[in-house]
């Protein structure tokens, strides 16, 4: 019965699982590529080649593991949040909280297995591309690129590690699903987001201690920290987002002396729907900080090899941008209803569109306000020019803004093409 519920519900809500699926494919590929690096390194006699591949496996694996765990955590939690009403209805049908938790974990596992199969199909191409890119700086000019070696044991170990990461990331979402109040099924009014769970509070304390420790070390002249300063900074942003984002967002938006209806709607909606706002803000902030990382690593300097930079930073930046975009796109249903509500009380379509544009601006500006001080601090930690980490920020902020604009204005256009009545009733949404 549970298996049936797992499969039928996952099939029904496949659109919501799409983003998690794509990130899971990336996660599985990362794990398999790292396994390929290690297996290939073991088979090589040349110590330089071997060290190069092991180094790539370590940096690539670490960078991506942090990003993938964070992204999956956000996405699965968000996917669960959007289905809370369904979980509440299940409870009226006699499905207990424990079963709901198992169903969510089961769904994550099913999606993860399908993603693993896709990743295995893509693996030969990915490994070949990575080996070609990594071979250039490692080998003599004209020498053939390294040939990847990957056995069944390595695939099983990498696959197992990947599945463990997915299940770990899904735990928080499964717990949230389990604790869905049954009352949600019968309440019409949208409630503000509840506070963070205990797991997040614990993580927040650990990362905050780590981060403050690094700041203290910097203040006392311990400069061995270098650009790795940004790793706990990114973790801190993701974990403390439910507290940090509303403070920063409320703080600067209150300073804007405007009483225009579009601004009021955008400001209050962004602040009220804090789950969707802080997910997007924290992910865009991490995107900007990853960009700062590439600046610190000198990837934008003259004469640097962009392919080598892409081999390390390309996947995490793409995964985080995709996750940020997905969290925004997944809120389209709520945004359509927000638009319909505003229009039915007298908003013109121009005002509704302006409110959507301003909400996008609010999210991106908030991301910048959080990312910029951390990026500047990172230049102090890494003893580089203060402009180094900032160089990639404008183009990445531009991409984030375009993504947000598309995601917030598209629902306005969709509602405009439909009758308002069915959208308000939920049928057309």
């Amino acid at each position, binding site marked *: 019965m549970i298996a049936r519920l797992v499969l039928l519900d996952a099939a029904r809500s496949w659109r919501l699982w799409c983003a998690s699926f794509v990130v899971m494919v990336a996660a599985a590929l990362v794990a398999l590529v790292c396994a390929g690096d290690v297996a290939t390194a073991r088979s090589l006699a040349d110590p330089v080649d071997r060290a190069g591949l092991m180094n790539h496996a370590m940096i690539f694996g670490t960078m991506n593991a942090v990003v993938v765990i964070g992204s999956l955590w956000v996405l699965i939690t968000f996917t669960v949040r959007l289905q809370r009403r369904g979980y509440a209805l299940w409870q009226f049908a006699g499905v207990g909280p424990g079963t709901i938790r198992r169903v969510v974990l089961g769904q994550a596992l099913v999606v993860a297995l399908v993603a693993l199969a896709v990743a295995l199909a893509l693996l030969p191409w990915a490994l070949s591309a990575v080996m070609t890119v990594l071979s250039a700086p490692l080998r003599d000019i004209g020498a053939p690129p390294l040939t990847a070696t990957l056995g069944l044991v390595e695939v099983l170990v990498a696959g197992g590690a990947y599945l463990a990461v997915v299940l770990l990331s899904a735990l928080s979402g499964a717990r949230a699903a389990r604790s869905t109040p049954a009352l949600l099924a019968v309440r019409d009014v*949208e409630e503000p987001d509840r506070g963070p769970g205990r797991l997040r509070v614990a993580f927040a304390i650990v990362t905050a201690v780590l981060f403050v420790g690094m700041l203290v070390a910097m203040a006392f002249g311990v400069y061995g920290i270098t650009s790795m300063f940004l790793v706990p900074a990114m973790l801190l942003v993701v974990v403390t987002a439910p507290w940090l984002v509303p403070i920063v967002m409320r703080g600067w938006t209150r300073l804007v002396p405007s*009483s225009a*209806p579009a601004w009021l709607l955008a400001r209050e909606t962004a602040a*009220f729907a804090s789950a969707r706002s802080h997910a997007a803000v924290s992910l865009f902030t991490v995107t900007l900080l990853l960009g700062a990382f590439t600046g610190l690593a000198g990837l934008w300097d003259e004469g640097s090899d962009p392919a080598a930079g892409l081999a390390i930073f390309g996947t995490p930046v793409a995964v985080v941008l995709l996750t940020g975009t997905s969290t925004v796109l997944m809120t389209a249903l709520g945004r359509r209803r927000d638009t319909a509500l505003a229009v039915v009380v*007298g908003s*013109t379509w121009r005002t509704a569109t302006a409110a959507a544009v301003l909400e996008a601006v609010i999210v991106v500006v908030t991301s910048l306000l959080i990312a910029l001080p951390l990026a500047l601090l990172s230049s102090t930690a890494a003893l580089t020019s203060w402009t180094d980490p900032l160089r990639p920020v404008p183009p990445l902020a531009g991409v984030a803004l375009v993504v947000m604009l598309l995601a917030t204005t598209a629902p306005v256009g969709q509602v405009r093409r439909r009758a308002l009545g069915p959208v308000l009733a939920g049928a057309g949404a």
Partner: protein
Amino acid sequence: MPDVLLTARRLSKSFPRRGGDSVDVLRDVSLAVHRGELVTIVGPSGSGKSTLLQCLSGLDSASSGTVDVLGTDLATLRGERLARFRRDHLGFVFQSYNLIPALTAADNVALPLRLRHGAVDRGAVRAALDAVGLGGVARQRPDQLSGGQQQRVAIARSLATQPDLLFADEPTGALDTESGARVLAMLREAATGRRSVVMVTHDLEAAALGDRVIVLRDGGVHRELAAPTAEQVLEAVALAGATR
């Protein structure tokens, strides 16, 4: 000032169904709403009450027929012009309240005023909330209010802009008896002078508050009753249901 606020002529609405055919939800409905009237629409489930209200108010478009509000054919209005017309002349009250969850009760009432006039007279907002007995909850958000309070805020919001026509779709459907009675009294009171109220309801006692009651059956007007008693409405609806 014309006496007739709204005229619907031969209104029909059909929805496409899987397999290519369509289902007729409204068939040739014609009606008029005069100034100062409370018109209630009743009928068995699936008789097209809510669809009729949505077509009359421009929230949905009819497949055929016309709806004239204040001499303007709603079908000729699109996009911005329809949104402005709704803002300037119409008000809405829904069963599910449809307050904007991010805004406080006061901001929900102030929003249509702000959208219409640019600036907001805080005193007018306060007075609108006081009029529905909710001056004390001005700074609370919808999730902090009871269903009855939310519906009264929705009424305050819809009346704040002094609309010519107020549409109410099952406004007491989700309320307890006492809250429902308060809301109905407010709607009855709102239908005076230059303003009219069109209300869809399944509550026959509420329907009997109307100056006129339109009984729908299978998407068409089955009967029209002038100032009926609850018993007369019950009888008409029972007949409509029994002869389906």
